[in-house]
């Protein structure tokens, strides 16, 4: 009935150069189980999210119960189990941006790319999310495209910038 799923996934992950980064972090932390959150941070930064094979790798390396790792990952909003997409588009829906037409931008994005906030395209190229005020109300409506703030944008402009990003 029980098969050890942990071993197969670890082999798969070893061919990945990003796993070396995680291994280095685990060694630096002396394989301490209490360093789980720091190690998950490294993994999340390397991959952009936490794939199951990586979680299994960390679980095995730290000799932690799988349920402990999973509960930690799901508790903190910083960690994500799903890919956020190669390119991310964060639309601010704070009060100022909303008044200046953030919803129109979201509607246009939904029309053009068939994406609602929180979704990622099938080819994993683009992910759309919303935030409650990014602290740039003077630039309303603001959109953050791959950590780059686009200020006072119109729906058309942002769609064009996204298309330019995806085309590359």
């Amino acid at each position, binding site marked *: *009935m029980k*098969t050890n799923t942990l071993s197969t996934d670890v082999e798969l992950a070893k061919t990945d150069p990003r796993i070396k980064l995680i291994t280095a972090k685990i060694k630096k932390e002396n394989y301490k189980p209490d360093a789980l959150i720091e190690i998950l941070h490294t993994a999340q930064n390397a991959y952009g999210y936490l794939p199951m094979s990586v*979680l*299994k790798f960390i679980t095995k390396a730290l000799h932690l*119960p799988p*349920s*402990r790792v*999973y509960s930690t990952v*799901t508790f903190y909003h910083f960690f994500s189990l799903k890919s956020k997409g190669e390119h991310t588009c964060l639309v601010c829906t704070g009060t100022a941006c909303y008044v200046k037409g953030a919803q129109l931008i979201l509607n246009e994005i939904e029309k053009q790319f068939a994406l609602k906030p929180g979704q990622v395209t099938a080819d994993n190229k683009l992910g759309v999310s919303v935030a409650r005020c990014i602290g740039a109300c003077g630039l309303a409506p603001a959109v953050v495209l791959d950590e780059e703030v686009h200020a006072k944008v119109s729906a058309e402009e942002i769609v064009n910038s996204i298309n330019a990003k995806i085309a590359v």
Partner: protein
Amino acid sequence: MPKISVTIDDKKLDVDVGKTILEICKESGIEILTMCHLKGLTDVGACRLCLVEIEGINKLLSACTTKIAANMIIRTKTEKIKRYQRITSELFFAERNHVCSVCVANGKCDLQKLGYKTEMDHIRYPYLFPECNVDTSHPWYVLDHNRCIMCTRCVRACGEVEGAHNWNVMNRGYQVRVISDFDTPWGESVTCTSCGKCVHACPTGAIWPKAIVQGQLEKKPEIIAELIEKRKMNL
């Protein structure tokens, strides 16, 4: 062992130091409602049913996690506490889909008994009706999230007594769920030893052995404490 004197419900008591308020009350026959407490497991103060009033402290403190101190004046049965206990039990029932009439634990359920104890006749809060799974993948046992009250007794029994750490809690807020391993079906868990301690630790009908019909569930939560005692003995 040094003794200190405390007052609980206007009764003067000489008690041992280092114990929790709940332990002292149990020893002196003062009834305190509990749900997440199980003898033998670490207390976590999750259910908020054992709240007591302590003179000089503004907020209510959980009896299971508060150590007794000298000259404490504790009250366990004030109107305020009774009101809070009633609210807590109503919230328990409103959170998930508890239907006693179809439950295996009907008549033997700690949650049901709590409802009677707090004289709960209706629920003043809107029901959440969350979508909950029933995990029947284990060959012997079933986990029904609808009946789970998140007391985490199974989590602690598995980790502290069995040492398997199969269970834990995922997500937060009203989305919390008890999970085995990476939220894998219980039957596919690599850590579960199928020992059945979680089945006995569960106060409701959330975890039960298969082939049990409505109202026929027999649980022995006291075996957890007995096991720990037996392990201490040099046989």
